[in-house]
């Protein structure tokens, strides 16, 4: 018995020493060199077409600029498609072929952070941490560890088709759900849909149900993140609101089940009056920009919308972590962030960058709504939860069950999943 305990203790000491050694080794090699000329090695960054047409063109001169000041570093920027990005990244990481730096959003972060794929990047912003907006840092933090440096922020808010409002004789922009319900028959009469609700399984609830849930005063999970909370009275109100629009024929039916292409969607054809969770970046190119106007998010009880944060994460598998961190530090510096935001119609996560857009542009209007935004609660299973909830919402909207029963059934599934740990 004594021998067993001694052995256990020995093993513990050995394991502890190894961990300590590994930690010492890791911190030394991963530290960003003080002198830019000492930053060495190849870094591959995966980014996505945030600007659908010019993402690669944007980074080309930036890489050259960085390599000029960091002559021993070599940066390769690969613009990957949005579609199946998790599958691609997972496979690459599993095969040991992952990039050194990758663009991630809060939804994705927990899955990679929880399995140890992401490096702590708090040292990257150690000197100017206070310059970052607190909500942006919170969105890139999982389990107390900063897993990515926030590069941009976005907002989704109420987007109005002025042409549709004019055709329906509506003069005041809706502020509440009741306003929307009052406008709906007038819009239908004028040949317009009130809104488009994308209920297809591939759509994220961050752009559909969740903002309505928050507007009704509800939340997805309880504060401790252990139980479903969306089947509250607020949740039922939110789903009933959408159902009223569906039942009245104020929402096109196809997008409830299938995801139409942007150009052929009712919104893309200019047949939709209000986008409840719209944004400048996602507006269809088939409708002139001058037809749109941007306003604060709708409210039932609270005016709130979904805003996301995009950040650059360093992967644990990177062979050149110091160079990767140096690149991330440079790419998210205030001057770079300013140029990036302006060019991409996104907003800065650093306070020092200030307001990027002025005047009457859509970007300026959207930037003003940042104060209403939330990224929602960060949960390891957030995507799985959404996939569990979506079919139940669809069932209610397709008249297969009532909103209350649908949300209760979804809550049962979600609680089962959360209970599995």
């Amino acid at each position, binding site marked *: 018995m004594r021998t067993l305990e001694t052995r256990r203790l020995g093993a513990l000491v050995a394991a502890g020493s190894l961990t300590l050694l590994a930690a010492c080794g890791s911190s030394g090699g991963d530290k960003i060199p003080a002198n830019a000329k000492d930053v060495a090695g190849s870094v591959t960054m995966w980014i996505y077409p945030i600007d659908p047409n010019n993402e690669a063109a944007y980074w080309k001169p930036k890489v050259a600029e960085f390599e000029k000041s960091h002559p021993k570093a070599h940066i390769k920027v690969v613009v990957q498609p949005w579609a199946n990005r*998790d599958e691609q990244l*997972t*496979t690459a990481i599993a095969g040991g072929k992952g990039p050194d730096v990758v663009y991630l959003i809060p939804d994705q972060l927990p899955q990679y952070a929880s399995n140890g794929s992401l490096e702590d990047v708090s040292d990257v912003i150690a000197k100017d941490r206070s310059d970052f907006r607190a909500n942006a840092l919170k969105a890139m933090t999982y389990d107390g560890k900063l897993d990515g440096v926030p590069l941009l922020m976005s907002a989704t808010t109420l987007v109005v088709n002025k042409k549709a409002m004019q055709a329906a004789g509506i003069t005041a922009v809706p502020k509440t759900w009741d306003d929307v319900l009052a406008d709906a028959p007038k819009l239908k009469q004028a040949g317009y849909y009130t809104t488009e609700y994308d209920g297809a399984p591939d759509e994220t609830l961050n752009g559909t149900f969740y903002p309505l849930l928050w507007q009704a005063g509800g939340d997805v999970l309880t504060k401790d993140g252990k139980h479903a909370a969306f089947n509250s009275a607020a949740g039922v109100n939110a789903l009933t609101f959408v159902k009223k629009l569906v039942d009245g024929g104020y929402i096109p*039916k*196809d997008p409830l089940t299938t995801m139409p292409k942007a150009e052929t969607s009712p919104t893309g054809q200019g047949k939709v009056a209000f986008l409840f969770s719209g944004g400048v970046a996602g507006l269809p190119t088939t409708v002139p920009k001058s037809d749109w106007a941007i306003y604060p998010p709708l409210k039932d009880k609270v005016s709130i919308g979904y805003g996301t944060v995009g950040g650059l994460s360093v992967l644990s598998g990177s062979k050149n972590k110091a160079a990767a961190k140096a690149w991330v530090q440079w790419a998210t510096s205030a001057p770079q962030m300013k140029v990036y935001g302006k060019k991409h119609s996104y907003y800065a996560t650093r306070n020092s960058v200030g307001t990027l857009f002025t005047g009457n542009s859509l970007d300026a209007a959207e930037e003003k709504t940042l104060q209403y935004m939330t990224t929602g609660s960060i949960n390891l299973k957030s995507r799985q939860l959404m*996939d569990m909830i979506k*079919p139940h919402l669809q069932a209610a909207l*397709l008249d*297969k069950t009532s909103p209350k029963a649908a949300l209760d059934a979804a809550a049962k599934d979600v609680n089962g999943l959360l209970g599995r740990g």
Partner: protein
Amino acid sequence: MASLRVSSVALRLRRRAGSGIALLFITPYVLLFLVFRIGPAIAGLVLGFAKYQISGTVQWEGLSNFRRLFADSLFWNALRVTLVYTAIAVPLTVIVSLVMAQLCARSIRGIKVYRALYFLPVVTSLVTSGVIWQWIYSSAGPANWLLKGIGIGSVPWLSSGTMVLPSLSLMSVWTRFGYDMLILLAGLLAIPRDYHEAAMIDGASAWSRFWYVTLPQLKPALFFVVVLEIIQSFQVFDVIYVMTGGGPVRSSYSLVFLIYDQGFHYFDFGYASAAGVVLFVITLVVALWQRRLFREDS
């Protein structure tokens, strides 16, 4: 006697050299097959009994993934969807392919052009096909326009739980029949004309000739097509992924979709592998049963 022995030795040597060359030719394929098919299959089987994280950690879990799978209502729903889809898509595809093969077996002017045209959907990108069919099935699409025109009214092709699998099967027929048709056509053209001529002399009708001459002669090709289609249907994913994403209300959520979700969305590779193992066993059992059935019939 001596010359006979010499020639037999030479023959043996030539045979050996021949088999050596054959071996040389098949080695690259065998190697690739082992590395990219058998290897991952074995890894998948092992992972079914483990908890695997993309960081590389593997933890032995015994049968827990399978226990969880059999208690998961999502799995049973996915299995039901897969079976119903197979029951609709396979007969439909085989019948359409057979009819088209019969038509294409005729020696009419420009038949080669028709054959090539019918094969086109097979080589068309599935995403493109999906977008086109989504439009065909949409409320304002040509299918509903046609039905409204003849007074039937609009059909919720992809938004109804009852209609979604037949609608997807129909699209699948369009994308698959060209390939099956070619196999069956080859089988049809290989049937000696004498058999049909003899049956005609005996006064057999067109249907009797098809039933008693064509069909029995076509059995090997037909068996191949049926097995292939069943395997394809059990593995249905891409059509669903492009068209419905498994909806509405999981009415088209197939087994492979479940595997995909668990593996690549939720990173639960062990659970996904367990579902893959179950799918493999089901497919194997069906294929063996079918083989036996065809043999008994022969």
